């Protein structure tokens, strides 16, 4: 190309661990998306300058050690109850950014009532829902979101619709609630989906910071360990089977609708 006059070339760090994370290496399994989702959230906390005004609500699941990684205030909720804990925290500290981070066992099984009612009350919280179609932490049991036919430790014959019902699509269900302001489903299995996910996450944060209301982002996630797959195979399952059962998209956005 055309020569340029007097340009200083300096190396600039364009990508690194977010400031709002601790230095601790993850305990997650190789290829597990929890790590990506954590980092994406932490990046946004950095971007919005929220490190000093965040209260994270950890749930019980593989991500129970969330507080080891996020260098923010964190309260640990009993299994399934993060939305209730976040309700209390956010009402008491409205000026703080309050998020929950929950797995599908946590949010879609034991915590069904809590998520529905927090959504319907329009609590101004941001919910990160990590749907990996399995109970990871406890060793790979069937989740409400387990795919039909998927073998887990409690569906050794593969999930049977006749006895266990079909997988629940949480985003669709929550979107029917008038109280929910933003509901989206995203994935991080490739860069295209990743970028859409990041946008959705930002919007879910905006909705809270702007006081619009309850915001929910469902991340399709992988669990190579309990799916008994390589990280690559697991990513392929997300791309093929998961997205087919749980279509990506924005299911509700009361501002866009208006």
């Amino acid at each position, binding site marked *: 190309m055309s020569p340029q006059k007097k340009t200083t070339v300096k190396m600039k760090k364009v990508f690194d661990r977010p400031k709002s994370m601790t230095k601790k290496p993850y305990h997650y399994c190789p290829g597990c998306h929890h790590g990506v989702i954590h980092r994406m959230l932490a990046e946004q906390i950095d971007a919005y300058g929220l*490190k*000093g*005004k*965040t*209260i994270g*609500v*950890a749930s019980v699941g593989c991500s*129970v*050690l969330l*507080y080891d990684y996020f*260098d*923010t*205030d*964190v*309260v*640990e*909720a*009993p299994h399934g*109850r993060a939305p*209730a*804990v*976040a*309700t*209390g*925290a*956010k*009402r*008491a*500290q409205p*000026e*703080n950014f309050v998020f929950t981070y929950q797995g599908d066992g946590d949010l879609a099984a034991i915590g069904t*009532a*809590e998520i*529905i*009612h927090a959504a319907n*009350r329009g609590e101004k919280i941001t919910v990160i829902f990590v749907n990996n179609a399995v109970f990871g932490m406890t060793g790979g049991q069937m989740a409400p979101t387990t795919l039909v036919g998927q073998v887990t430790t409690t569906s050794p014959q593969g999930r049977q619709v006749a006895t266990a019902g079909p997988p629940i699509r949480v985003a669709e269900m929550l979107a029917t609630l008038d109280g929910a302001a933003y509901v989206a489903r995203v994935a991080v299995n490739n860069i295209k989906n990743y970028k859409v996910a990041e946008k959705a996450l930002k919007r879910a944060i905006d909705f809270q910071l702007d006081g619009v209301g309850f915001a929910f982002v469902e991340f399709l996630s992988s669990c190579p360990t309990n799916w008994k797959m390589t990280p690559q195979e697991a990513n392929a399952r997300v791309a093929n089977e998961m997205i087919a059962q749980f279509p990506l998209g924005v299911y509700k956005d009361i501002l866009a609708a208006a």
Partner: protein
Amino acid sequence: MAKRVLVKGNEAICMGALAAGCKFYFGYPITPQNDIPEYMSAHMPEVGGTFIQAESEVASINMLLGAAATGARAMTSSSSPGISLKQEGISYLCGSEVPGVVVNMSRSGPGLGGIHPSQGDYFQSTRGGGHGDYRVLVLAPSTAQENYDLTMLAFDLADKYRNPVMILGDALIGNIKEPVELKPYRRKIKPKDWALTGAHRRPRRIVKSLFLADGELTDHNWRLYKKYQRMAKETRFENYRADDAKLVLVAFGSVGRILKTSVDMLREKGLAVGLLRPITVYPFPHQAVQEAAERTGHLMVVELNTGQMVEDVRLAVEGRAPVDFYGRPPGSIPTPNELAKEVAKVWRKRGLQ
């Protein structure tokens, strides 16, 4: 002079809570304590506080956990079946050392039971109905005034020990109306150096009950244990005509106050009976009971159940004196006469004069 108003026991609790700076109430309706959420729904907004009717008892105890983790004074209330559902949450509050006030206006069980007053939840309250080795401070009011006073105290003790405090009343204590002197709350609420308020210009804070590192959980449990031991100094009880008594009755809450009338009746008939009424049932007034046993040689426990607190009395007495027991499962309210008769029976059986 403090204002004197005629209020329902349940309402006195609310007034005490509001006076003590409680700004967060989370609850789910259940008889016989509905006055509490109802009062709070009307009055919380007036003080800029938050009232949420939660979707369940489970949700409400966890909302309390969330609000109290930020340092706010928060309360929840329910009655027996609802309190059972809160047990996991209470265990978490203890495990993660989050203060909070839990009111149990207990009713009769087991199961759906009925809405009569009952003392069937004594074990649950004092031994921890949830999992693990933990204790909650349990205050057992017997008048509307005590409801008011002890609720204020409950918030202070909760903060002091970073532990949930339970108010254990029952359908009678919640529903009677009595004059209450609305003494102002004067204590200063200290800032909480562990509360989650956003890690602005300070290291971040974590509120949790999971302890994974080697030995960490054992240490944590020992620390909690020592804290529970320290709570002994909060022991409170009332002696009623007990000084010169030859037979001391031990009873708490609703039965405690009904028995005062029985004591008066029996005294009129010349029976030197008295009453020791635990106000804190955890910590239990072991020493006072032991002294009463040694002083008089005869104790009698009366409960609105088939025998729960009597174990604490026996543990305190350790065979030093006979401990008689009159228990009655819920389903009706015993009258002073009925109880007086039972006491008189024991008086005779033991050959007292």
